[in-house]
């Protein structure tokens, strides 16, 4: 919802390339499990976000991701019984029973949290740097009416957020006791229906009802399209290769086993480098 066209190589790339780039980083976060490799993916996304001029969106997502990651770590440490190295004995707790926190469960929880952070950051980068209208246009050829329904739904979200803020402001202006929740719910629902009708009428007069499947677009591939598609393939390739070749071995249970061989360090550096390389070319980025 926070997409805004900026002068950056990622914004200059077509939506398909930008989407592939973000998806490849997300898949890398799912495929890899070694903390160093996951850290490399997080670093790549954060630096990419800053280089794309969407650092603020990434920062907001990072705060959310860190909180969520911390939560995942704590929950995993409290509920997992695996691991040999006990670092804290809580004793008998209601509901949870006997709770012994192990180093292995804590580290594994932290790795899961890191993965969640990487995925949230991926989502933020995608939302802030890939044009949603272009993405919907891509899917219109596959499922035309579903894509338009998605258009309507995405358009309604900011409108309804603004409407709810207005309604909240209006309620603050009412003197006397605040309105009941039921009354507010009724008013909000009526407002949503009114809005939906207005937007539906607008869609009708723009020809939505008689819309045809759009013809295939053949736009020339720009340097940025090629660079980000190439980076997507390379990141994906490196992540899968590291996983298959066992370059980044990591096992949490029963005892922590996380050696950092030279191959893992090199792979981590390569992922960051390959992911950021497309940002070096800043020609033709402004529209």
């Amino acid at each position, binding site marked *: 919802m926070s997409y805004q066209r900026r002068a950056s190589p990622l914004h200059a790339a077509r939506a398909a390339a930008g989407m592939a780039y973000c998806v490849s980083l997300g898949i890398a976060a799912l495929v890899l499990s070694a903390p160093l490799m996951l850290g490399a993916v997080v670093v790549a996304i954060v630096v990419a976000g800053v280089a794309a001029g969407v650092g603020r969106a990434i920062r907001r997502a990072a705060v959310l991701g860190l909180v969520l990651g911390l939560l995942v770590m704590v929950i995993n440490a409290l509920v997992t019984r695996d691991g040999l190295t006990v670092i804290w004995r809580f004793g008998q707790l209601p509901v949870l029973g006997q709770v012994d926190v192990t180093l292995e469960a804590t580290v594994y929880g932290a790795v899961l949290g890191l993965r969640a952070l990487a995925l949230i950051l991926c989502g933020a980068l995608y939302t802030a740097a890939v044009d949603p209208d272009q993405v919907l246009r891509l899917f219109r050829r596959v499922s035309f009416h579903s894509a338009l329904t998605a258009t309507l739904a995405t358009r309604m979200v900011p409108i309804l957020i603004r409407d709810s803020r207005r309604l909240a402001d209006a309620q603050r202006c009412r003197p006397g006791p605040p309105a009941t929740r039921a009354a507010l719910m009724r008013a909000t629902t009526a407002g949503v229906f009114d809005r939906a009708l207005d*937007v539906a009428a607008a869609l009708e007069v723009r020809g939505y009802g008689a819309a045809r499947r759009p013809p295939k677009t053949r736009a020339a591939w720009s340097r940025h399209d090629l660079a980000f598609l190439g980076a997507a393939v390379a990141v994906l390739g490196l992540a899968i290769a590291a996983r298959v070749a066992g370059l980044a071995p990591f096992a949490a249970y029963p005892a922590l086993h996380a050696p950092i061989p030279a191959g893992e360090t090199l792979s981590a550096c390569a992922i960051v480098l390959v992911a950021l390389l497309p940002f070096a070319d800043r020609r033709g980025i402004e529209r």
Partner: protein
Amino acid sequence: MTVLELDRVSYRYPRATGPALDDVTLDVGAGELVVLAGASGSGKSTLLRVASGLVPHFHGGEFTGRAAVAGLDTREHGPGELAHAVGTLFQDPESQVVMGTVRAELAFPLENRGESPGTVARGVEEAALSLGIAHLLDRPTESLSGGELQRAALGAALAGRPALIVLDEPTSQLDPVAGDELIGSLRRLNEDHDAAIVIAEHRLERCLGLADRVIALDRGRIAFDGAPGEFLEWAVARAPALATPGARLLDGVGLKPAPGVKAARSALRAAGRLPDVDEHQSHPRRPEADAALRFDRVWHELRDGPVILRSVSLKITPGERVAVMGRNGAGKSTLLRHAAGLMDPTRGRVIRAGRIALLLQNPNDYLIHERVADEAPAAALHAVGLDALGDRHPRDLSGGERQRLALAVVLGDPAEERPAAICLDEPTRGMDRERKRELAELLRSLPAAVVVATHDPEFAAAFADRAVLLADGAPIADAPVGEVLATGTYFATETARILGGAGRALTPEQGVAVLTRTEVLA
């Protein structure tokens, strides 16, 4: 060639007691610019929705007669198919822009038609260039101002060059500058592309000078159909609520009404009645009194964003009637929100002598109960003249009645705490002249200071004693309403523009008095 043809069309909305259109027959030819006039509820919007096919396909109801757009019968062709021939623009820009960027918005109707990418790109460029919005193409639609959104929506209506463009009060949410620009763009499109335009508008003075023809509706029937000059003569004699201030001014001094400021001034000049402009400006001292509301060097600076208010210092005394004017984005709404405490200044302070009642732009946001009587105390309903409608559902009220009900809600129970000041943000959007006159009278009768943010100089002249003009977050004029609105170009009433500010006359009645006095002196 006829682009819109209605033959004995009658239409009744579902569950409505009476017809919205009643036996309407009319033709609109290619290249005509037609203004639809009429009070709220007279059938203007319904007629436009017939042309776009929304009536009856979208709204349902009972439809009789025949309507055709560019030869397509609207009973056989729905709005989607008619979109090739007719571009539609509604009143509220926010709910008719459906895509994320202006470029995607302009491309949307063309893509729906299955046009090739080249044709879509060209259509987008041409629509953007013709409206002067090429610089906005890659802006997200949610970052646009009201005026920019309205232009983007108009661009989407124009993309593909429809033979007919129908517009429902397109300027009602725009400031005078943006409104005039939009009307100018329409005239250019009409002249350059031969597109027929049908525009429903309450502020007739804004577009009559450019119109080829005016159709007036009354309770769903055509009451007048003719040239703008003839319409004004008819309106002055038969429907005074539709007569423009300029027409009333000329009629008041015995001259034939003429559409537009230039024609009215020419008529006065030809009759030797155009007075000299009095350059003397008086600045009467405001009476010293305690403030009902005071802004003391108030700043509002957005984090990582622009400055919205710049060191605003204003003192509103009890009983004062103040109009706050300025372009969209000048800071009017933010100022009122600070007054009511919905926002806090980043620097400076707001001092209130008591509770500040604030009525925001959309009265529906205040109405949450099933009965009018449950919304506000009886005394407040009485103050706004709604005590007889206590058992009605708020959503069944007319637009003007809902506005008054929302005002009653914020006024609260006078027995408990009477507000020190009452602030209203753009209360006249979409109101016809008669409803505005009633609202101005009501505001003048309220026992508190009244501050109204408005784009409407005629309304400001009708209710205010003082006008504050904001630009870029700071007051650039703060004087009696006669001085501010008589000397401006955009923020001036039609009477003041015709008379060039002579005698500080703002309303037709004041203008007639100035012209009569001038004649006696001569």
